[in-house]
């Protein structure tokens, strides 16, 4: 007799627990800015913005107009009103598996992952600092200046560092702007050029430190300290070991030139002019 009542009572109890758990989340939204899925939350809302602190599993911070989404277990931050009373994230510290995603129709997607992330920004640009090991993954597609379709994936990892981002990049501009990482640093770059003359190129590089600047023309990527690079296909192919390696990139982040400095420089490198 007791068994006949156990499963419906148990089912109702579990449903009630699930319902209660569902009801306990705090969500905030103002135009295209939102804070979601907080189990613990405290905040002050004022005309000029919101200061918040909380935890979720995971919590989520979104700015739709910027294509920015961040998730983590804990977050503390502040969003303020800019043009048109739109909220933008001015500062935030995320911890417990911080994950920053930036996507746009023009510049592709980018993902930054680390245990902790310190974010500062305006409505149009941001700086993300990582005091602990981080990984950056980027996927972009587009067409070259010769109208050849291409896709490009980049993965960068380091022990700590920072990157700066454009939140609303212009067409064919990079969301990733500048950055510095401490090592050991690993870079993996894969390019696919489609069209009448398809081509695939891969670059793998390691070093003690990385500095890149994609805002200049040409863009550059500088690896220093115990540098090793392997290139296959494309403009640069071969092996490099050096103290310093400077890779010059075109607008599509294709390597066009490699400058090597230091000893021992045991290098076997084949370099062709850009197509």
């Amino acid at each position, binding site marked *: 007799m007791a068994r006949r009542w156990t499963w419906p009572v148990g089912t109702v109890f579990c449903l009630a627990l699930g319902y209660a758990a569902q*009801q*306990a*989340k*705090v*969500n*905030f*939204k*103002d*135009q295209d*800015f939102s804070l979601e899925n*907080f*189990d*613990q*939350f*405290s*905040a*002050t*809302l*004022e*005309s000029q913005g*919101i200061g918040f*602190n*909380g*935890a979720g599993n995971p919590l989520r911070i979104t700015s739709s107009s910027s294509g920015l989404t961040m998730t983590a277990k804990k977050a503390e931050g502040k969003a303020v*009103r800019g043009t048109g*009373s739109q*909220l933008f994230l001015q500062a935030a510290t995320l911890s417990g598996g911080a994950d920053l995603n930036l996507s746009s129709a023009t510049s592709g997607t980018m993902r930054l992952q680390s245990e902790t992330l310190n974010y500062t920004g305006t409505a149009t640009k941001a700086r993300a600092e990582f005091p602990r090991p981080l990984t950056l993954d980027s996927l972009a597609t587009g067409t070259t200046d010769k109208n050849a379709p291409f896709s490009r994936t980049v993965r960068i990892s380091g022990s700590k560092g920072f990157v700066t981002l454009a939140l609303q990049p212009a067409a064919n501009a990079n969301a990733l702007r500048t950055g510095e990482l401490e090592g050991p640093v690993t870079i993996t770059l894969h390019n696919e050029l489609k069209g009448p003359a398809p081509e695939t190129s891969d670059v793998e590089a390691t070093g003690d430190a990385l500095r890149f600047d994609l805002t200049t023309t040409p863009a550059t990527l500088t690896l220093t300290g115990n540098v090793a690079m392997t290139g296959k296909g494309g403009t640069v192919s071969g092996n490099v070991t050096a103290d310093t390696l400077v890779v010059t990139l075109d607008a599509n982040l294709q390597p066009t030139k490699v400058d090597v400095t230091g000893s021992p420089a045991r290098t076997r490198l084949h370099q062709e002019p850009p197509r």
Partner: protein
Amino acid sequence: MKRAAPILMAGLVAVSAAQQLFTYRDRSGSLSVQARSGLVEQRANNRLHLELKGSPVVLTSSTEGLKMRAPSIVCDAVSSSKTTVQKAVATGGLTASKSGGGSSTDITAGAGTYVPGQLTLQGAVKIVSRSGGRTTTITGRGGTATLGEGASGGLKRATLSGPVRIEAVQAGNAASTVIATGSKLDVDNVRRVVTLSGNVDVVGRGTGSLGELHGADRATLVLNAKGEVSSVRVSQGASQ
């Protein structure tokens, strides 16, 4: 002085149609009554007992700065130099108006009991407070309202059970309002805070509003001197 025998003013009970108006005013003019029918009884020790029915009864006390309207009011008061209401029980739908200190408050409820400084409310409650050109509206079910002393105080405090709702103007943005709902509400006009608890939602309406927040355990609306919402503090879980 010998104990005066109670004088039953039964002659004032109206037996004709509803249009007949029954009025009473004490000698000091501090208590006045309008009703369709009524019983006013002078008892020992300057005590006054009134049983009133009307459409509605209007009971005005200038001593308390209070006006009560209801189909039925039973009131006990004390008359000395001025008449002071000791207890008034209103049934069949109550509206109480309290003004003072530059503000006014209208309270409606299914029924209510007034004792000096406090109204206990039953049924659907609505409190409309006006101050500095701003209007704040609160609704709930049952609770208490603590009123300012005498003719100089408005609403000091109110506690209502839910579901509760408050709508107030957002400070610095008269075109926007803040609407908060929950299970319980506590208004403290001395500290200028309104606290809601129990599955609280806070929604801003209008351009430049505070946004929308859902699912908090607790929210505190901080008011400025005009009764406008200058900020909202929200908490949920261990972050409180």
